[in-house]
């Protein structure tokens, strides 16, 4: 599987697949610039799912109306560009009133050990970061709740 195919699968999984149990991403953009950083894919949505009747009512009564985003960047990342990516994601969250976001870094070769260490240390409340190595099909996320939640949903190999 190459990165392009992975992006298509991830997009589907986030919009109509398993990620709908967490949040409903309704719109997806490709190749979008955010604060000078080009993201291969950007999805936006909210935690209020639509549903038909009962699920809509339950969602309205029980779920917080949080705005959510998923930003996906492809290609090689070093520690400097990781910081730039996270700054851009933070800027996007502030500009669009996003309450929490998933940041996915997808690549078809193993990630730099420095980047892996940096992600492992992260523990932000509002943003989860995942490193996806498409060639070896490994996913590494940060320790935050948001990060741990995304692990199963970015793992879309089938």
């Amino acid at each position, binding site marked *: 599987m190459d990165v392009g195919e992975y992006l*298509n699968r991830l*997009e589907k999984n986030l919009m109509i697949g398993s990620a709908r149990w967490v949040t409903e991403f309704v*719109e997806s953009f*490709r*190749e*979008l610039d955010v604060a000078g950083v080009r993201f291969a894919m950007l999805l936006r949505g909210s935690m209020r799912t*639509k549903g038909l009747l009962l699920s809509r009512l339950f969602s309205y009564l029980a779920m917080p109306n949080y705005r959510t985003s998923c930003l996906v960047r492809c290609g090689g990342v070093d520690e400097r560009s990781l910081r730039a990516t996270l700054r851009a994601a933070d800027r996007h969250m502030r500009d669009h009133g996003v309450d929490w976001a998933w940041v996915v870094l997808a690549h078809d070769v193993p990630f730099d050990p420095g980047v892996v260490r940096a992600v492992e240390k992260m523990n932000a409340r509002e943003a989860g970061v995942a490193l996806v190595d498409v060639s070896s099909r490994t996913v590494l996320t940060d320790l935050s709740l948001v990060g741990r939640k995304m692990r199963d949903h970015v793992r879309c190999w089938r």
Partner: protein
Amino acid sequence: MKRAARLQVENVLRAFLLMLFLLTVAWVVVSLLVFGDILVGQPLVILNLVLAAVLAVFFYRSRYHEVLEWDDEGFRLRRGTKTMTGRWADFCAVGLIHVGRGVFAVRLYRDQELRDCLELPVARLGINPQSFRDQVTACVVAARAEPREAASDEQSPET
């Protein structure tokens, strides 16, 4: 120019039911006024169904039927009797939107703030939304790059 059109069964059914309802109401009113009673019989029911089907075809074609035509320059969307045209150069972002029940549409944004948009109902027309989005994105990027290149050519000093 590429073209996509598809019979929307859901809307055909909707048009048929609407026509059937209107004809039935009309017949009830006419029948009460003329005969003083509501006349019901097999020939009348068959006539009602046939008339409803004929009217539904016209109603569907004039209101719901959608045809999308597009090329590298722009697109033309015909919905019923209304026609909407656009050039890819007028848009700056392309989004894929999930409108519910696994149905997707493509949104074209006129501004960078992603507010002013136009929706193309690609899934209803039988087009693969993801590949259409990729195609349109390439067209929008190319169309927006052309004026910039032309402007930079004009600005460059002549030797």
